[in-house]
């Protein structure tokens, strides 16, 4: 089973079409929409705010709490049962860890920053889309941050190393590896890495390098979304 050409005709380092917007939810302190191909993620940030129950409070620094959820009608197959699942809890946790390195939590001891991620439509790469949206939403909320975080999935389909696998590629009948990765913009360090499938070490290293290059474009999209919102708020014409 060779994979000479991608199913949707993309180049190996080409993501699906990306769109991002900041400030889409008025009640939230910060919010964003991030769309990659047919995967759509909304993120809303509330806080820093009081943390209950009290025993969770940390007098040295604040905490970040992420809640990831796919909407019940978002998936290609059957309805997704609402409420936390093992999968959604794990994704919430790794998303927290992906975002942590850029947050100045010491600036809000005892408090919590809540990040809610919801996906109305999915086609692979949901955790990465969620992280991209959350990073924009945190910046939009004015949470003290050192940097932005962006994420994309990389991997291999047959012998080809490529970025941003779509659902049909993940389901390819052959050797497939899916490696979601998140990167801190300026340091280039990796804050989320998972993988499932089958991959050789050389392929993995190539994939990570390819991912880091691709993420530069995604950082630009994130920054553009933030700038557009603040231009709009200040009444500047673009």
């Amino acid at each position, binding site marked *: 089973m060779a994979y000479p050409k991608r199913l949707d005709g993309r180049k190996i380092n080409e993501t699906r079409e990306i769109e991002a917007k900041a400030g*889409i*939810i*008025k*009640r*939230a302190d910060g*919010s964003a929409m991030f769309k990659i191909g*047919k995967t*759509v993620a*909304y*993120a*809303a940030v*509330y806080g820093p*705010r009081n943390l209950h129950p009290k025993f969770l409070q940390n007098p040295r620094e604040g905490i970040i709490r992420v*809640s990831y*959820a796919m*909407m*019940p*009608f*978002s*998936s*290609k*197959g*059957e*309805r997704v049962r*609402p*409420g936390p699942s093992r999968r959604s809890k794990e994704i919430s946790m790794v998303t927290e860890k992906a975002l942590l390195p850029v947050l100045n939590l010491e600036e809000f001891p005892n408090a919590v920053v*809540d990040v*809610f991620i*919801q996906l*109305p*439509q*999915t*086609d692979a790469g949901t955790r990465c889309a969620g992280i991209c949206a959350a990073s924009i939403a945190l910046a939009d909320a004015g949470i003290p941050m050192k940097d932005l975080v962006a994420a994309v999935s990389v991997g291999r389909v047959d012998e080809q190393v490529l970025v941003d696998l779509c659902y049909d590629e993940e389901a390819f009948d052959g050797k497939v590896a899916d490696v979601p990765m998140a990167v801190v913009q300026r340091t280039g360090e990796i804050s989320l890495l998972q993988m499932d499938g089958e991959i050789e070490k050389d392929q993995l290293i190539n994939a990570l390098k390819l991912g880091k290059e691709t993420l530069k474009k995604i950082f630009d999209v994130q920054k553009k979304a933030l700038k557009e919102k603040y231009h709009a708020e200040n009444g500047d014409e673009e």
Partner: protein
Amino acid sequence: MKQLKSQIINGLEQDLRFDGRKPLDWRKIEVEYGISKNAEGSARVKFGDTEVLAGVKLSVGKPYPDTPDEGSLMVDADLSPMSSPDFETGPPDIKAIELARVVDRGIREAKTVDMKKMCIEKGEKCWFVSIDVVTINDGGNLLDACALAGLAALKDTKIPKLEDGVVKYGEPTKDSLPLEKEPIAVTVLKIGKFFIVDPLVEEEDNFDSKLTVTTTDGTICAMQKGGNGTLSVEDIEKMVDIGIEKAKEIRKHLAKKGAK
């Protein structure tokens, strides 16, 4: 809080609300169909800043023993903590349960979907219709918005292909759901002696009593009284009249769905 309430009432005495509307004005209503391609049907509804999404998923199962020749339908609502600082994570609280049940009753009791036509094989196989509503931004009046989104998602639904009793998701047929009626929920709030529709969050925090009236072309199919205050029969008569009248304006926005 008391001060806010007296400000609201002062405004209403001059026929005016915080956002400049008259007591019985809707905010700008927007209905957008097909917002989630993986759902069998979906819609986004906005009332001003309030935004909700609804999606329909179909599955095949065994009919309930008491209705062997009918399909079945269920509405679930997620008052997502994304949409308001007042909503918390965790299992649905009483507010979400009440909302889902009021929307469910409106759609069910109006006989919106001809459930007999949703039976595939008597006593053996039927369609289950799951309507899920998720709130995105709570700018007030989530209930009316959720009820409208649920109905719009039903209107958008295409039944998927069925092969040997297995649903082929992502392969829709040309068949829409057998829709018979269009129930519209209108919640009328009573604040002091005044009646308003399409409340803002500030108004929802300060009302005395309310009545959600769900109607199909003038026939009432579901009601729910809420709030700590009471209502007289005269109040209810007025509120039902308002509910029927204001539903007409919403219907215009639904009607736009035709070519798809």
